[in-house]
């Protein structure tokens, strides 16, 4: 082990780490997929399909699995959701399709839609089949900002319709949060890059890496040089605790650490505390807590200022944390970061409760947790600065995000947007739908122009 104080790398052996960061779900084999598919009732106007943000014909693809038409199943999925492979792994199905399954109503055991979707999409990817072919070239060029799920989905649909696409991506790899943000055990074996390669396989999409909007390319320049622009940036800002000592060694930003973890070829080089405290209640909080545990932290505690029902993380995610040995502590917020010899030593919390008006307030009681590491996971924010607002033609914002209509069109006539930078759920599947809808609207727009 190497490191300072309670923080060390190599807490676990290479074998333990490789086991801890391997696929969290066992994929269905053909036999199990057929059995599961045979449970589907093939509902009319199916509730699961209505609950899917991308509207995948779920009964349709499950029936194809049941008849061993696995390629057909994969194409049904990917036609509506080009990142159906990633969504099969990361979608919170327990609050989307599977929660709507009539088998859930009937016997509280829904069809494993996510697992079946993975079975079909994996089948196609393993065989390296490319089911999509581009329409004849329109001669139009579209700029896409950000190679995350929204940008890639938009680019793929535009390429399919015959347009040429250039994606400007600030980071050295495409995939967005699938590459840099999702917990490692949900998308192991470099799945994100395999999926990106599949998407780019259609042709007509060029990615310029290391090109950040507002730094390397200007918004005005894109609007000038391209027939249309799609903004698919993520959330660049991270919320702060606003406490003294936030810059103390040992106090870390969860998003940045997960990014480092995802990119680390050798997980044993990552330093992790013996006692880790996570502040936050969303999926990032759960992801950093579970991954800390799997890196070898002894005690990991997630502290959230409200109750389990208020957490952004689903019940399923909360239970995942608990079965990984993470302690979830509700109704407390951080009050003081305490250091010792320049390093984090403990975090003091105030208990909270709701007052009669339903507002969050401190009870007056306090407790302290020893901590070598404190992860902040209290949300990210959209940073509109690169769009150069204040210029002659500002883009309208809705709250802190870019305002869009049902077609994902912004207030500017040639600019569409989707993904985390627009209002709505911050889910991969929603981002894909944004990109898809925007691409169809851009296509209609370019053809009528």
């Amino acid at each position, binding site marked *: 082990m190497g490191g300072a104080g309670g923080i060390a790398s190599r807490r676990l052996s290479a074998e333990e780490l490789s086991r801890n960061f391997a696929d969290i779900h066992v994929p269905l084999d053909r036999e199990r997929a*057929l*059995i599961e598919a*045979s449970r589907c*009732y*093939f*509902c*009319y*106007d*199916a*509730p699961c399909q209505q609950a899917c943000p991308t509207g995948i014909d779920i009964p349709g693809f499950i029936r194809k699995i*049941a008849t061993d038409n696995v390629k057909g199943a994969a194409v049904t999925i990917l036609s509506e959701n080009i990142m159906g492979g990633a969504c099969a792994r990361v979608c919170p199905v327990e609050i989307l399709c599977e929660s709507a399954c*009539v*088998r859930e*109503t*009937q016997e509280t055991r829904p069809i494993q839609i996510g697992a079946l979707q993975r079975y079909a999409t994996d089948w196609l990817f393993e065989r390296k089949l490319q089911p999509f072919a581009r329409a004849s070239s329109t001669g139009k060029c579209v700029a896409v900002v950000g190679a995350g799920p929204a940008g890639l989905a938009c680019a793929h649909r535009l390429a399919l319709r015959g347009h040429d696409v250039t994606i400007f991506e600030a980071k050295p790899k495409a995939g967005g949060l699938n590459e840099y943000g999702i917990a490692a055990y949900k998308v192991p074996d470099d799945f994100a890059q395999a999926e990106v390669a599949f998407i780019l396989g259609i042709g007509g999409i060029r990615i310029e890496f290391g090109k950040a909007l507002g730094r390397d390319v200007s918004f005005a320049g894109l609007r000038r040089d391209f027939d249309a622009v799609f903004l698919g940036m993520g959330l660049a800002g991270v919320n702060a605790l606003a406490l003294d000592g936030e810059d103390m060694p040992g106090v870390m930003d969860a998003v940045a650490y997960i990014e480092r973890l995802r990119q680390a070829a050798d997980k044993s080089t990552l330093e992790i505390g013996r006692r880790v405290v996570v502040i936050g209640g969303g999926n990032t909080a759960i992801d950093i807590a579970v991954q800390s545990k799997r890196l070898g932290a002894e005690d990991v505690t997630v502290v959230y200022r409200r109750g389990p029902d208020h957490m952004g993380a689903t019940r399923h995610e909360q239970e995942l944390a608990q079965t990984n040995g993470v302690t979830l502590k509700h109704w407390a917020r951080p009050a003081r970061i305490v250091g010792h010899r320049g390093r984090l030593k403990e975090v003091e919390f105030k208990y909270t409760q709701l007052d009669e008006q339903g507002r969050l307030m401190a009870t007056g009681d306090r407790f302290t947790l020893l901590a070598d590491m404190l992860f902040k996971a209290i949300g990210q924010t959209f940073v509109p600065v690169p769009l150069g607002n204040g210029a002659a033609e500002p883009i309208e914002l809705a709250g802190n995000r870019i305002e869009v209509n049902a077609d994902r069109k912004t207030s500017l006539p040639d600019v569409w947007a989707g993904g985390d930078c627009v209002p709505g759920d911050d889910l991969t599947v929603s981002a894909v739908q944004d990109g898809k809808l925007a691409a169809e609207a851009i296509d209609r727009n370019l053809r009528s122009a």
Partner: protein
Amino acid sequence: MADLRTTFAGIKSPNPFWLASAPPTDKAYNVVRAFKAGWGGAVWKTLGEDGPPIVNTASRYGALEVGGMRMVGFTNIELITDRPLQVNLDEIKQVKRDWPDRALVVSLMVPCVEESWKRILKRVEETNADGVELNFGCPHGMSERGMGAAVGQVPEYVEMVTRWCKQNTRMPVLVKLTPNVTNILGSARAAKRGGADGVSLINTVNSIIGVDLDRMAPYPVVAGKGTHGGYCGPAVKPIALHMISEIGRDPECAGLPISGIGGIATWRDATEFHALGAGTVQVCTAAMHYGFKIVDDMVDGLGNWLDAKGHRQLDAIVGRALPNVTDWQHLDLNYKIVARIDQDACIKCGLCYIACEDTSHQSIAALTTGGERRYEVIDRECVGCNLCMYACPVTGCISMVEVPTGRKPLTWLEHPNNPLRQAAE
């Protein structure tokens, strides 16, 4: 518990559950295991003439899987026993000696000459078996050699061979009938005329169970080729039920004991056969699927059901449903039922709606009330066909309820739309 003992065509058994003539009854080892498990009787796998033993193919069975359910239908191209005649006879004698209370019937198939039948009957008699069953049903292989179904499909042959047997043995003679005919009454009546003590049916149905799309050959595939086989298993039960009911309600066949065969896997299946007139039942595929242990629930379940219905003996229900089996022309056209959906049990799958909308009478409305899916029957459009009830995956959610019409029963024979109606007045 109710008394399950049966006397069928003079053959006694402790319960009505016999194993049918088939691979499970090919040798003493299997039959003894079956008797230990509780089977009331067994029909020994078909014996043929003495001589060079039968030769079978490798790859003999094929199966129909439906929605992940294995062996809903089953087929075979196996022939009659391939063991030497004397070995079988010796084993039959020993088993009968060791299990005197069980019914032990011997299935036979020899060429269509009286001498052949006479010869083998004499040797079977020496085993002290309880009776013989003439295999006039086997649809594959043996029929190409003028035996099995080749006999069973010609009523004159059925009658002739049955008569030969009755004249040459004191044992009860059962005739096993093939379903591969347009009207089962032809062969059933012929068996009766020939003096049969009872009939067993159905034998297997001519079939190709499926096609191997890679090898482009029918299952089961034998070195790249296949042939039609004998279809059995749960899927053939409806065919069997119909055929035994036809015999059961035929005046010419009155009093002819029936051993029901065809897709029986549970006591409930068996009881349906009894209700349509079967005195005993024979089982094969279910045992080949799950082993002999299934008889435990068959015995137990039938006894419990008889108790619950207040019957002390199995005989009390044999043929009880026959009076209610009639011809279409005698059904009451003024009887009206409509579907009722139990909204609390409904899981909102919409299958009732789409079945009715796409393929029937558009009598279910798909509504959305307060964001919730809701399906309601449009009574005035509902013809009471039952489709929605069967499409619904929730048992009991959709029921068919009688709607009093105030009209007197009216059959087609009396109906004003029938140009040949018989005046009711």
